[in-house]
């Protein structure tokens, strides 16, 4: 432990939040958590609630694991991590059911499936097990934010083109429909979510050549 106290928002800590938004984004660069990204992005509202849920679960369990990291026997660490995540997920699920029942219905099993979301296990294993609570908290927030941003972008395009609405409000005027425009039914199906994620990855790599793997 360093004797000098590190400031709360040192450049190293800031990086923990900003990097997952761009060059080490959990979805577009590490390609984790794709399953839920495809499933919940038909409309923006459920995608947003999902993003918040993941953020809460990830940030809190990162802190909890980081607090007890020195007392976890290495051989059973995965089980311990799972117990923490599962407890958080059940809490979040119950809260959603109590306060936003409709959306909780739309999200169906996918809140429960946060337990198996690779981003969570990945962050606990790779970061919280070896870092102090505060950086772990920031890391959890950052990675969840990176996940959220992609979720929101994908769901924005899927809702706009697939249903003609944004956040449930009609944005494409009726006159355009009279002109012959149609909502794109493929956008509502999961394959198109994968393609939209693919296009985001394409654009990101075209702009940031460092991400392209060298053979």
């Amino acid at each position, binding site marked *: 432990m360093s004797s000098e106290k590190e400031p709360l928002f040192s450049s190293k800590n800031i990086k923990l939040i900003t990097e997952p938004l761009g060059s080490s984004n959990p979805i577009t660069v590490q390609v984790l958590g794709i399953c839920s990204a495809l499933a919940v992005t038909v409309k923006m509202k459920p995608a947003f609630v999902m993003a918040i849920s993941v953020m809460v679960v990830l940030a809190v369990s990162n802190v909890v694991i980081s607090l007890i990291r020195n007392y976890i026997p290495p051989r059973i660490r995965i089980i311990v991590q799972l117990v923490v995540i599962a407890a958080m997920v059940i809490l979040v699920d119950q809260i959603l059911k109590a306060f936003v029942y409709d959306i909780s219905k739309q999200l169906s099993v996918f809140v429960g499936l946060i337990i198996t979301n690779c981003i969570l296990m990945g962050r606990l294993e790779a970061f919280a097990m070896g870092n102090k609570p505060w950086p772990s908290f920031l890391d959890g927030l950052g990675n969840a934010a990176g996940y959220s941003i992609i979720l929101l972008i994908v769901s924005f395009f899927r809702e706009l083109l697939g249903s003609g609405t944004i956040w449930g409000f009609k944005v494409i005027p009726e006159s355009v429909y009279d002109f*012959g425009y*149609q909502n*794109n*039914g*493929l*956008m509502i*199906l999961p394959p198109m979510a994968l*393609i939209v994620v*693919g296009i985001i990855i*394409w654009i990101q790599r075209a702009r940031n050549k460092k991400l392209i793997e060298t053979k």
Partner: protein
Amino acid sequence: MKSLRGYLDKIKPKFEKGGKFEKFHSTFEAFESFMFVPDTVTTKGTHIRDANDMKRTMTVVVLALVPALLFGMWNVGYQHFLSIGQESSLWQTFFTGFISVLPIIVVSYVVGLGIEFAFAQYRGHEVNEGFLVTGMLIPLVLPVDVPLWMVALATAFAVIIGKEVFGGTGMNIFNPALTARAFLFFAYPSYMSGNEVWTHGMMKGEGIIDSFTGATPLAEAAAGNINNLPSVSDMFFGFMPGSIGETSTLAILIGAAILLFTGVGSARIMISTVVGGLVMGLILNIFAVNPYMEVPAYQHLMLGGFAFGAVFMATDPVSAAQTANGKIIYGFLIGFLAILIRVLNPAYPEGMMLAILLMNVFAPLIDHYVIESNISKRLKRVKVQVKVQE
């Protein structure tokens, strides 16, 4: 001709490296080699050169599509006048079809080639010829009254997502024309299926006579009305509603003959696809628990997109299997699955598109196992020889 050559030679230096229009080199190259045989000369080693490069191959396929296209245009007019209960002369019929089909072809080529040229320019490689065929295939597999902006969107999707992201012509895993069709099929089902879409003018409800339903034979069969199926000769010649180019088995057979005669299309794939369809048809005939299953197996080959898919889509050299035995397995499964989906899955009246796309995905796997089994066979032979020598 000579003056054109002279003109091209005159402006050529401007498009070379360091010239004024260096950026448009690939565009110039595309036009030049479209008009004349490419002037690239091999410099090393001995080569056997053939005049048959990719542009000529693609031209042959487009030629083979012409009978289906011409008949398709005529049939569009024929179905239109049938639906409004009017007599019409041959030319009137053809002209009606011609002016409704032509815009689709123009849109498909303009959008597709535009994107191809843009990508070639940007990435600095030659313009690929693959779209010459795709651009003609896309209109032929669409219903005639599909809105043009949908054609444009589907073409763009097929070229960008179906082809360019994989690296352009020769790298795509799916047949681009079918990608376009699948896109429309899932994105705008109301324009791609149902009874109204297949006849020109029917969606606007222009004076339709009551006895005309516009349902394709497959839709009728799926609804259980197999007595309403057209006569066998109508099926063969193609006097029935359907996508623009798919109805006439005769016209498609002429195209198949051109492809086989010039060696451009693979006979193995075509034959094994037909065999696969027949086998599945016969299996269904044996069980025959509902009227649809009783449709004779050979009639399935003439209905819907089966013939068109078998001749022009399944044989696409890029997305099909490459090995000789692999082609047989690939074709057989296409035919087999197409009839299976068509008859047993009520959600999809036509299974050819889905069967071909599915087998496109499996083609590399099939090739892999064919090659593996070849290797292990040869290895066995080697071991035997070694033992004899000992």
